[in-house]
């Protein structure tokens, strides 16, 4: 064997992946050839440098998120049956079916106007706590509307919620399931999964001009038209709220959880923690500190697995107030196996409340 042939085989030679006869031949050659010996030495060093790279550890939450998505997929597979029931119901009461679009348009219009006025007022009075004015029931869920004032540049008129018309038909359910993720994910999915929304937005909500992809910044604002408005407004009663929260969980547990920026220049940070406790609190502070220099609103997403993990969670109202005074806006999203709890500077939940409800 000449040097060129030997060099070609050196890689397999150090792996012991060549026939013995050839290996012996190479060893023989190496004895008499210092250049090939040097090449072998360098190759060995190269491989050992690569091997010396440390392995990274999977975070505890990796398996949680995978299982959340898989569980959700199983659940989704059972859905078509439910849809059939709905279809049957509507076939039995056809007039309901005709009534819906009218109601839908009316509702959207009313909601649009209300939100428009509401938002305009609230941008003047920054971060007014909403909690005390909430209905008596204490579901720890924030419907889309009250969060709107938190948006950093709220003065520019944005209408995320009513941007789409009614979707009273069974297919809407799926669409809704997809939409929340878009608030977190990047441009690519936005464009791909909402083909019709642009048209509808311009038709139904002329006030939404001036900002592309306006829905993404508003935290819970599901871009699902009437369907989601209903769910959102039903957020204070048990069943509907659960369903809605579940959607968030499944969607959010996927690609959406990462530190990223939205169109509103808002930073979203995922805080991964198997237990919501002091560690979480420290991480919150660390995150705030680390992005403080950027001077932009921060939204935090906190994922955990079981309600037991909420044990020891202690975000106090004072804490949130303090954080939000440092930043333009502060939001924490708690994700548990049962749903999502939203916490922001307008709705700070005590640990007891969370535990009681989830």
């Amino acid at each position, binding site marked *: 064997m000449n040097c060129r042939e030997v060099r070609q085989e050196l890689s*397999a030679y150090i792996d012991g992946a060549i026939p013995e006869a050839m290996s012996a031949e190479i060893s023989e050659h190496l004895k008499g050839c210092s250049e090939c010996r040097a090449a072998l030495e360098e*190759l060995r060093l*190269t491989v050992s*440098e690569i091997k010396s790279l*440390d392995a*990274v550890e999977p975070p505890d939450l990796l398996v949680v998120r995978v299982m959340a*998505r898989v569980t959700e*997929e199983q659940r989704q597979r059972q859905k078509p049956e439910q849809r059939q029931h709905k279809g049957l119901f509507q076939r039995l009461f056809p007039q309901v079916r005709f009534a819906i679009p009218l109601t839908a348009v009316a509702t959207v219009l009313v909601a649009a106007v209300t939100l428009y006025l509401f938002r305009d007022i609230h941008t003047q009075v920054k971060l007014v706590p909403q909690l005390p004015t909430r209905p008596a029931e204490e579901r720890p869920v924030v419907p889309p509307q009250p969060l709107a004032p938190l948006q950093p540049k709220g003065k520019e008129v944005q209408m995320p919620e009513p941007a789409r018309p009614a979707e009273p038909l069974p297919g809407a359910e799926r669409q809704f399931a997809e939409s929340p993720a878009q608030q977190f994910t990047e441009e690519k999915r936005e464009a791909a999964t909402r083909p019709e929304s642009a048209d509808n937005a311009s038709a139904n909500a002329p006030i939404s001009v001036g900002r592309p992809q306006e829905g993404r910044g508003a935290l819970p604002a599901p871009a699902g038209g009437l369907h989601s408005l209903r769910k959102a407004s039903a957020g204070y009663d048990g069943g509907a709220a659960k369903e809605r929260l579940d959607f968030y969980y499944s969607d959010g547990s996927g*690609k959406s959880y990462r530190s990223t920026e939205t169109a509103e220049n808002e930073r979203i940070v995922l805080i991964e923690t198997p237990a919501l406790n002091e560690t979480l609190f420290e991480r919150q502070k660390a995150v705030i500190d680390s992005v403080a220099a950027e001077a932009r609103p921060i939204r935090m997403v906190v994922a955990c697995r079981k309600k037991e993990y909420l044990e020891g969670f202690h975000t106090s109202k004072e804490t949130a107030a303090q954080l939000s005074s440092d930043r333009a806006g502060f939001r924490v999203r708690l994700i548990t196996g049962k749903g999502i709890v939203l916490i922001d500077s307008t709705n700070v939940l005590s640990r007891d409340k969370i535990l009681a409800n989830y």
Partner: protein
Amino acid sequence: MKDAKAVNDDDINDVQLCRKGDLAAFERLVLRHQKRILNIAFRMIGSYEDGLEVTQDSFVSAYRNINGFDGRSKFSTWICAIVMNAARNRIEQNRSRNRHEGASYDDPIEGNDGPIARDCASPESSALEKLEQKERRALVRRCIKQLEDDYRAVVVLRDIQGFSYGEIGSVLKLAEGTVKSRLSRARDSLRSCLRKLFGGKR
């Protein structure tokens, strides 16, 4: 890979349970393989965050297609093939995005310092050595990143994950001869990229 045999037996059991809808069995599979899958994704893509996402997606896709796993290869090989494909797709996506945004070459790797730095450096090494070690690793990472995807794949599977040539062949669907020649060329290219390290030392 140390306990490949035992792992394999457990895998077959759990895969069968999984097909019957046993989520706990799938969770066991995830727990057993997540580290390797994450590390493959991470080394292929060069970003810890992207690696995490791709790992999640790969497991979800494995769950969806568990009936498509025919048992002729090991489950570990099968899931590795899935993550390899997913990682390449992600690399492609990132590339086309970077073309639009004009991101800097070293951008994605920056986020990795945390997880990498955590368990390096033995307790007795001096600050200077630590720094040197950190720089060495950064250089190694950069060199691996510079490789073409096909070449990086064989290096990751062989030198980082310790797969045999045969296993690499079945993960990447390549003949063993191709694995051998690709690995040889990949290592050559790494060697010249890392040459200044060796020059400094000897």
